[in-house]
């Protein structure tokens, strides 16, 4: 439904983007389609930008999506926020380096308190460290004896890991261990 960009329909969204960009010249923004907008923000300005969004009635943070791009050596963090007032979904994209020591972000917990949970999630699965979030080291979903395993990163070799951890893959036939997905 309502697929693609329709010229007349996205005027409202364009107005929102213009209004935000006026106050945040460091960001780039565009309208994706009706009720979907996105911004690209440098990583160090993310707190300023999210504060601005929060002031502009973007109330609900839906999720923080890390996407691993090993070819670029970067992890993309997408802060997805829904505005109940404007009825618009906004994606705030930012990129940080992929190396474990450098994959650090300031927390946005004080702006959107729920971000604490999402940040714990991103830390557990991608190894992105959010500075200022004291629950970062707290046990979350993963409960592994091996530390520093970030299973959602692209270079995590799942089949090797499964074979190592659970010893065998298939109970019925030993010949079936060569899997091609």
């Amino acid at each position: 439904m309502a697929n693609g960009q329709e010229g007349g329909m996205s005027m409202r969204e364009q107005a929102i983007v213009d209004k935000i960009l006026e106050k945040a010249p460091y960001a780039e923004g565009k309208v994706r389609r009706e009720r979907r907008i996105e911004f690209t923000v440098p990583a160090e300005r993310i707190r300023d930008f999210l504060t601005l969004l929060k002031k502009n009635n973007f109330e609900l943070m839906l999720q923080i999506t890390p996407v691993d791009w090993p070819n670029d050596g970067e992890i993309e963090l997408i802060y997805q926020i829904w505005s109940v007032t404007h009825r618009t979904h906004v994606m705030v994209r930012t990129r940080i380096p992929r190396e474990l020591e450098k994959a650090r972000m300031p927390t946005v917990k004080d702006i959107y308190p729920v971000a604490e949970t999402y940040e714990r999630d991103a830390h557990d699965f991608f190894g992105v460290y959010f500075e200022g979030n004291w629950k970062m080291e707290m046990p979350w979903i993963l409960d592994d004896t091996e530390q520093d395993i970030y299973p959602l990163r692209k270079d995590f070799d799942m089949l090797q890991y499964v074979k190592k951890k659970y010893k065998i893959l298939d109970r019925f036939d030993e010949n079936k261990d060569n899997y091609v997905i």
Partner: protein
Amino acid sequence: MEEIEFKIAPESKIKKKPSYIKPWLGLKYLFKKPVTIKIPHEKTQIAKKYRGFHTLDWKKCVGCNFCGQICPARAIEMTWLEVDGKMEKRPHPKIDYGRCTFCQFCVDVCPTGALRFIESFILTSEWEEDTIQLFDWVPIHPEKFRKLQESYNDWRFPVEKIEFNKETKEVVYHLRDGEVFKFKILGYGIRPPKKQKGGTDSKPD
């Protein structure tokens, strides 16, 4: 900025009055037929296209491995079989119910319609080395399965026992009506096994 218009549920809908007579009206349910299906004595109705076990028409199967590629659980392995000393020309899917999620995408993609499903769904076994072989089988012919289902009508797996000889790779199906069905596994994969004996090392690329 545009505001959302929503209708608000009226306050009058929320009644907060306890009643003293109404509980006694519940006694009328004593005289109604219960909804319970008394399972060992009663049979349930299963929908017509319930996604149960697989059936395979061995004549139609062309061994294209589409089913193996689409399977989300990697439950399907193409197997080279030998029936009555004659090798089947094409590999057939061997389905592992320790993996299968009964999504039947394999049936959707089957280009010849050889792989089908049937409504039967009950397969219970002890967790023992020999009985658990039941969970790994090459499906039997749809008509045979249908006949067994119709004669017993209890939605059970049609095979009572599968004997699998690990050395000779011989498989014996003991069907529920006493029929015995034998074949031999020659190898796995989409390429034919190199030799008749022990050629089990051919793998999909």
